[in-house]
C-alpha cells in the first residue's frame, strides 16, 4: 500500500506524513499526528467541530483530503495560544463560560478567529451568521456570542 507523501506546515511547524488517497485531513491530524483538538462530530461538514484554517481559509478538515495539504499552511486550535499566553478568544471563552461540554469549542475558537480576522468589529448578527457553521448543543450560543463580542473588543484595543 503506497501512501502519498505529504509535506505541510501545521501551526508554523513543518510536518511530513504518509496518507492514503481517501484519508481526510481530519483523520491525518487526529490519527497520524496526534493533534486531537479538531473533533469529528459528523464527518460531513455539517457541525464545524473539525474546523481548521487552511491557507487563511476557514474549512472543515473532514472535507479536505490529507493529500491536499501538500505545501500548505494548516492552523488548528493547538496553535492558537502563544506559549503560556492564551489567545484573547480562548481567554474570553473561559471567562464567559462559553463552553459546557467543550466538544465544539475548538471549532468555535477557530471559526471565531477567522471571523475576527476578516471582520474585527462584527455586529451580533454578523457573529451569529458567521458562526452558523458550528453547532453547539449545550449553551444555546448566548455565552459564545458574548465571548466573541468581548474578545473582539479586547483585540481592537490591542
Amino acid at each position, binding site marked *: 500500500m503506497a501512501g502519498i507523501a505529504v509535506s505541510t506546515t501545521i501551526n508554523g511547524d513543518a510536518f511530513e506524513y504518509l496518507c492514503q488517497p481517501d484519508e481526510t485531513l481530519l483523520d491525518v491530524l487526529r490519527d497520524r499526528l496526534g493533534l486531537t483538538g479538531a473533533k469529528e462530530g459528523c464527518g460531513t461538514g455539517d457541525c464545524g467541530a473539525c474546523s481548521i484554517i487552511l491557507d487563511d481559509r476557514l474549512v472543515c478538515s473532514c472535507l479536505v483530503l490529507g493529500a491536499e495539504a501538500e505545501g500548505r499552511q494548516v492552523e488548528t486550535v493547538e496553535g492558537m495560544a502563544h506559549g503560556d499566553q492564551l489567545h484573547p478568544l480562548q481567554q474570553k471563552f473561559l471567562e464567559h463560560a462559553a463552553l459546557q461540554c467543550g*466538544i*465544539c469549542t475548538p471549532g468555535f475558537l477557530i471559526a471565531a478567529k477567522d471571523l475576527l480576522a476578516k471582520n474585527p468589529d462584527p455586529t451580533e448578527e454578523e457573529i451569529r451568521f458567521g458562526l452558523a457553521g458550528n453547532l453547539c448543543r449545550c449553551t444555546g450560543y448566548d455565552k459564545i456570542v458574548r465571548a466573541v463580542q468581548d474578545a473582539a473588543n479586547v483585540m481592537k484595543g490591542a
Partner: protein
Amino acid sequence: MNFDPRFSGRKFSSVGTRPLRPDGIDKVTGRARYGADFNMAGQLVGRVLRSPHAHAKILKIDTSKAEKLAGVKAVITAADLPDLTDGDAGMYDVLDNCMARGKALYDGHAVAAVAAVDASTARQALKLIEIEYEILPHVTDVDEAMKHTAPLINDAIFTEGLEEKPAKPSNVTKRSQFGHGDVHQGFGHADVIVERSFKTEQTHQGYIEPHACVANVNLDGTADLWVCTQGHFVYRQHCAQLLGLEASKLRVTSSEIGGGFGGKTHVWAEPVALALSRKAGRPVKLVMTRDEVFRASGPTSATSIDVKIGARKDGTITAAEATLRYSSGPYAGTWAEIGAMTAFACYKLDNVKTVGFEVLVNRPKTAAYRAPSAPMAAFAVESAVDELAKELGIDPVEFRIKNAAQEGTRSSYGPVYGPIGIGPTLEAAKHHPHMKAPLGKNQGRGMACGFWFNFGGQTCVDLNIGMDGSVSLAVGTVDVGGSRASLSLVAAEELGIDYAQLKAVVADTSSLGYNDMTDGSRGTFSSSMATISAARNAIKILRDRAAQTWDIPVDDVVWENGHAIAKGEKYGNLAALSLKEIAAKSGTTGGPIAGHSELVADGAGVSFATHICDIEVDPETGAARVIRYTVIQDAGKAVHPTYVEGQYQGGAAQGIGWALNEEYIYGKDGRLQNAGFLDYRIPVCSDLPMIDTQILEIPNPNHPYGVRGVGETSIVPPLAAIANAVSNAAGVRMTHIPMSPPRVLAAIEAERGG
C-alpha cells in the same frame, strides 16, 4: 451515616460566586480528551454492521469472507455475546439492542461487528459479511402501532396494567394511571371545557460527540474501558454483566463527555467493543459515525396525547384529564408513565386523571432526553391551559397563578409538595419587562410552565488533603456541564478555603465507590451533598490533629474559616491553625488527612420553570423565528450561577429546536431518512436570540445549602411556550410538534380557507 442534610440557611462566601472552571483550560486549548481522543498500543478499529430493514428475521449470517480479509482480527455476531442475563428482562433488552438476536427490530439495529487493523479494512470487511433476511411488516407510528391490525414487534408482550389480563399479545407493553378525585364529576362543574389532541415527533439529544470507546480485555479476565458516558459505574455494571466479567476487574474511565443529555446513560456499542477485544486479543477503538448515532442510539419518544381540562368562569380548574401514548422503540419502557406523572404537576387540582400507554415501534430504543417525557406532556397540557384561559377571557399568567400548586398541594402524581417554585416563577413572569414589551406585525407572545422531579441517588466522594494544603476532590458523577467547578465551590465553602486551593477530578470505577450516573439533574445536587459530608469528615480529622498538636480535648476545637480554633478563654494564647499548617504536619500527627462519603442523596427538590417567548411568523411561508426568549426557574441555590444560566439557556435552545424543526422522518420502508445534521435540523447560532435568564432561589429543605437540580427543567416549557406564541402570531392553534414551516403554512391556509 452521621450527616444532617437539612437546609441550614448559612451565609456563603464561595457558593454563589463565578470562578473559572477547572477543566476549562484543557478545553480551550484542544487538550481535553474525549471519547475518541484516546488510543492504546496495538489498538484495532471496530465497526458495526447494521440492519437496513425496519423489521426482519435474520435467517443466516455468513462472516467467513470477512474473516479471511487480510487485516481483520475479529468478527462477531450475537453468538459471541451469549445470554448471561439470567432472566433479567431489562438487561436482555440491552443485550438484544447491542446485537440483534434473531430479529432486527429497526433500521440501524446492530447485526455484526468487526475489528481490523485500520478503518478502511474494517469498512471493507463489513461489506463481505453476508446476511439473509426475511423482511417482516413494520410499524413506526405510535398511533398505528396501537391498532389491533398493526404488525406485532414482540409476540411475547401482553399489556401490563390492565384490569383483565389480555388474551392477545400487543405492541402496548403497559398501561399506567395517576390522579385523584373524580374527573367525571369535576367536568360536570366546569363552565368551559377544552379538549384537544396533540402529536409530537421523535427527537434526538443531538450531542455533538458521537459515542466512542476504547476497550481492552486481557487474558486474565481483567479489562479496561475508556468511554464517553454519563455514568461509568453503570456502564461497568452493564458491560460486566453482559460479558460475564467481574465488575471490580473491569475498570471504566469516563472521558471528557461531549454532551449526553440522557443519551449517554445506556450502553450501545461498548459491550460490542469489549467482545471484539476479547476475541481479537487486542484493544479495540469503536467510534460511531453520526449516521449511526441517529439510527442506533436512543432518541426520545414520539407521542400522541389527548387533553381535556374544564374550568369555572372564575378561572378555577375543576377537572383535568390526559391520555398519553409514547413510543419506546422495540423494547418496553416507562416513558408514558413518566409523562403521565408530570403532565399536570404544576397545578393544584381536585380532580385529575392521567393514563399512559407504552408503545413498541420499529424505531431505535427510546432513551432519556433531558427531563424525559415531560416536554411533550407539558406541550399538550400548557397548550390546552392557554386555550382555556383565552376562552375564559383571563390572562394566561393570571389563570396559571390562580391554579398553581403550592406547598401542601397534593401533586397530580401523588406526593404532597414541600416549598416549591411554580408560584414564584409565575409571579416573576408577570412582573418581567418581557411580558409588557410591545409586539410587531406577525408577532405573537407565548408562555408556559414546566415541572421536573429531579433525582438523587447513590453517591460517593473522596476528599484528599495534600501535605501542602491543597485539596483534591474525587467525584464519581460525570461532569456534563461544569460540576467540577460547582463541587469545588462547595468543598471550598465547607472547608473555609480558597477555591483555587482545590482541584476536582472525576475518578474511575476502580478508584471510588459506586455512583449512579449523572442523570435526573442529580450531579451537583447529590455530589455536593456527598462533598459536604466528605468535607465535614475531613474537618473532624483536622480538628483532631489540631487537638493533638495542642494536647487539648478535640471537643474544644472548632473549625472556622479554614482554621482550627481552640474554643474558650483558657486557650486564649493558642494561635489558630490553618488547614495548610495542619496538613504540613500530617505525616507526624497520624498520616494523610482525607474525608470520605458514601450516601444515598434523598430529597432532590422538585423544580419548576416559567418561560416567555416572542415569535414572528412569515404568513406567506410559515417560517417561525424566535425573536425574544426568557427563562425563569427555581434553582434552590445556584452554586455557580453562570453554569446555572448555561443550563437554562441550553435547555431552552434544545426545546426551541424541538418545537420548530427537529424530527425523525421515516420513509414508507421504515428507514430513517434524515440521519445527519444536515436534515436533522438543530438550531444554529443565527436561529436564536440571546436567551435571558432569571434565577429564583427557593431553598430545597433537604439539602444543606438548599440546592435543587437545575439541568433538565429548562427543556420542559419551550415546546408549549413556542406553540402558544406561534398560535398567537399565526392566529391558529398549533397541535403538532415540530411546527415546521410546511405545517405552519398548512395550518394558516386551512384557517384562511375555512
